[in-house]
């Protein structure tokens, strides 16, 4: 998994590429640390280029939500397609992240 943070004022967009699975947990934690260092109100996870996400990946999204709640910013996802979109629909993760 690779990621790229596009910061625009108080909004940030993280563009993911590749699969988001357990083996990416170190990279994902680094992402959370990178986001922690910038002052934002909202962060959008762009999953357009993500082909696969497993339960560990979804768990990492939820950890990101916890961090967002603690730091006071909001998180959402966009661009999910195919299998990723189905997984988000199955788990209602969009509702969880928005809630």
């Amino acid at each position, binding site marked *: 998994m690779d990621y790229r943070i596009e910061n625009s004022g108080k909004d940030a967009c993280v563009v993911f590429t590749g699969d988001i699975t357990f083996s990416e947990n170190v990279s994902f934690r680094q992402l959370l640390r990178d986001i922690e260092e910038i002052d934002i109100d909202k962060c959008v996870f762009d999953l357009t280029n993500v082909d696969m996400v497993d*339960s560990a990946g979804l*768990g990492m999204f939820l950890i990101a939500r916890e961090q967002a709640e603690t730091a006071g910013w909001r998180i959402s996802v966009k661009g999910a397609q195919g299998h990723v979109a189905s997984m988000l629909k199955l788990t209602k993760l969009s509702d969880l992240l928005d809630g």
Partner: protein
Amino acid sequence: MPIVAETLSQDGSGDLAVLPEDWKESESVTDDPNTLDATKTEVDGETIKEPGTDGADALDAAGETEPQTREEILGAALQRWLEMHCVFDRSFSTLDHEIDIVAKLVESSTDELSILFHSLVVNAQDQSKSLDSIVEAASVVDLGDEKLTLTEVIAYLEQVFSEGILNVLHLAQTAMTLVYALDDVVVDVNEVVKHIGEIEQINKQTNLLALNAKIEATRAGEAGKGFGVVADEVRELSKDINQLAGTLRSRVDAVHTGIEQGHEQLQSIASLDMSGNLKAKNRIEGMMTALVSQNDAFSEKIAFPASLSNKLQLEISELIQQFQFQDKTQQQLDGVRTTMKVLDELSFDLAEETRNSAGFAKVEDDTEMMEVWLASMIDRCQLGEMRKRFVQGMVLKHDEEEEVADKSSSDDDDDIELF
């Protein structure tokens, strides 16, 4: 211009009309069987018909001799009229009885039909209830203490499945949190290992210093003897520290190994490919949707005969209300009976007037002409039971009654008793 002789005066008094002087009787009675009043009269050489007398065939059937005078002809006609009145009187009485029978038949048949249709209504109601219960049973799952519709069942399954998925998510989140926590622990453990290395390095230098001190103490001789003892103690202390550091290193290595194993276990917990769940959810949703669709189609098909049953029930109820025709029929039959009674009374009065005016005796016994008329009426009666009652009602002579009764029995096979 021909002159027509009249049988009765216009005022109906029964007096004979005055005939012209040149009137003369014909020599014979007409042979025309279709003409009841066919006595021929010849005036001024022209033959005319005289209305108001009975048929020549009837006269022939009675076997009477030809009347020779007009008075005799009119007298015979009046006699026929009185006989006909007797037939009328008996006929009215018999027909009155028939009207009673018809009225009772209509009433009893109407009652029977009403009972049958009420039974039909009850059956239609039962059928409707049965169909309604089928529809309800098909769309409701009975759990004993509660009943759920299929929609509620599906919603419940959806909720349970979603909760299961949510639990998996929370489990994954917890596992990843632990992973991150263990990662932090690994960092700390690595720090501990690093510090142990530093302790070992310090202890190694301490041991080396103690060794140097021992050497210098030995060179100093007696003066350095005490210092040599201290150097030995320091070396012993360094050995203990080195041993303790080794123990710590082995312990920390064990912790590190345990963390790595826990990390792997958490990976197996957190890394769940949920494609199977996704497929299962889609399949369950498809099955439930199909189940609801089939149930809806089934309910719709059942609802149609149920509506027909309700419609049938309403129509039969309306039909029962239509049975009021029996009252109307009874009223019409009463009207017919009343009219017949009036005709009977008028006929009686006229017969009495005729008998009193012309001096005829009351007709006591059946004449041959009356029997012919009655037989003619009975013969034309198509229904066997009715014909028997006619025979009994008309009170024919014994032998002829038997004859007619026999004829009635022989004709029964041709009766039309059923509608």
